[in-house]
């Protein structure tokens, strides 16, 4: 159970240690102290290990994560879990802009608020934000799910593809081609499962959410849509 003090060990050394982990390693839990907002902490991990960061992380924390369970006991800077492939990232504080950007898979849970562009260009990641998200969230999101227990800022789901968006609170405005859709049983079931995975089993009622998705009017060029392009 190694503890890494980033005031002593360089970030590059620590990340290299994580990248060099052999299959079936006995080191399955790493505790990181003194992160002090450093960038790219535990980026590029591809191993079924748990990494717990005690404090605030900087940009691109847990970026490209594959299989690891990464916990930030604090807030995270721009692009937390960006391009995540699989595994789980849990931010106990707030997340800055572009949380979970371009993520292909895995689950990102943010206990606080996420800033602008949360889930931008998502390609399969599931994101659960217990607070609110900022403007332009889920912009051009292709696949995956964004669940927001609080409110969403302006232009939610602008130019959305096939990602599913669920918001329990107020949506300031919807972006181009994003519309509200009926919340049917199949959706509340899927949402309930995801909330359970995010550790909210029974605490939140899936039927309180509203569902948003793509109107699919911008997929192909259409003269009548010229103003929306």
């Amino acid at each position, binding site marked *: 159970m190694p503890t890494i003090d980033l005031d002593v060990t360089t970030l590059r050394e620590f990340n290299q240690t994580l990248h060099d982990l052999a299959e079936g390693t006995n080191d399955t839990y790493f505790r990181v102290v003194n992160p002090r*907002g450093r960038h790219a902490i535990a980026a590029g991990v591809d191993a079924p290990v748990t990494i717990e960061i005690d404090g605030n992380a900087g940009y691109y924390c847990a970026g490209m994560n594959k299989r690891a369970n990464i916990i930030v006991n604090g807030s995270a800077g721009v692009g937390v879990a960006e391009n995540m492939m699989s595994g789980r990232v849990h931010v106990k504080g*707030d997340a800055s*802009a572009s949380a979970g950007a371009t993520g292909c898979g895995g689950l990102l849970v943010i206990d606080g608020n996420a*800033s602008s562009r949360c889930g931008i260009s998502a390609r399969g990641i599931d994101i659960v934000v217990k607070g609110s998200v*900022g*403007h*332009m969230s889920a912009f051009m999101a292709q696949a995956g799910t964004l669940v927001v227990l609080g409110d969403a800022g302006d232009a939610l789901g602008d130019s959305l593809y096939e990602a599913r968006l669920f918001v329990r609170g107020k949506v300031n405005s919807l972006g181009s081609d994003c519309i509200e859709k009926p919340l049917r049983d199949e959706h509340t079931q899927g949402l309930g499962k995801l909330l359970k995975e995010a550790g909210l089993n029974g605490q939140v009622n899936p039927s309180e959410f509203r569902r948003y998705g793509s109107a699919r009017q911008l997929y192909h060029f259409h003269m009548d849509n010229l103003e929306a392009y």
Partner: protein
Amino acid sequence: MCGIVGLFLKNKALEPKLGSMLSGMLATMCDRGPDSAGFAVYGRGDSDHVKLTVRSTSPDIDFAGLGTRLSEAIGSPVAVEVRDSHGVFTIPEGSEEKARKTVEALCSDVRIVGSGTRMEIYKEVGRPDAVAKRFHLEQMSGSHGIAHTRMATESAVTTDGAHPFSTGRDQCLVHNGSLSNHNALRRELRRKGLSFETENDTEVAARYLTWRISQGDSLGDALKHSLDDLDGFYTFVVGTEDGFGVLRDPIACKPAVMAETDDYVAFGSEYRALASLPGIDKAKVWEPKPATVYFWERH
């Protein structure tokens, strides 16, 4: 990219440490803007005097001699404090215009970078931590200060292009971003009679704010109007005699983090800049919202 830090002390007991806190914050932002740096510190001052910060472009400047001749020209004693390439001349209130003309007439290789009852401004080309050391920022005291590390995009790497820009008494501005309509706005402001010293986009923003304030706007109103009149992306931190303000453009693509405790309000382009402040673990830390004016003032 550029980096900004700002610190506003609520607890007067910390004032002797302002410079050391600010220089620590500035040093963490070196890699956001390695080409030049500058800072404004609001220190001692009284309403009977004005401090004129003069920067020399020549290493051979004789600031003491310049002070003597300035004193003779305005007919009053002038206190001179020299820090590397900058000299701060303390002159009686009411003599600023004459002092400016005198300094410019006596020396061709100086620039007046700012004036104010409490504000002093220092800037140079070079790595920000080295620039801070040259001016002994860590030894300065004051109630608040803002600092900038520059990665030039819109104009050349020169000391004239380094931030902060000051265009009004005790007012200064630092900027992360780039303005896309600065040429058009500069032309418009020139038509209104304003003059410009550089081709820099941030100077346009600083002069615009000073012009709005001269037309009767409060700083808050001036910042609100800039949302309509400035195009581009920006995070601004503005210093005044009493405090500092923060504004991000409506898209907010330039980063900003703030922290507040009972002792201070701090601004950083990134959390790294705030990580070494005392009590940061218990501070309220948040990102300022886009298109929202924030302002803190001394009481």
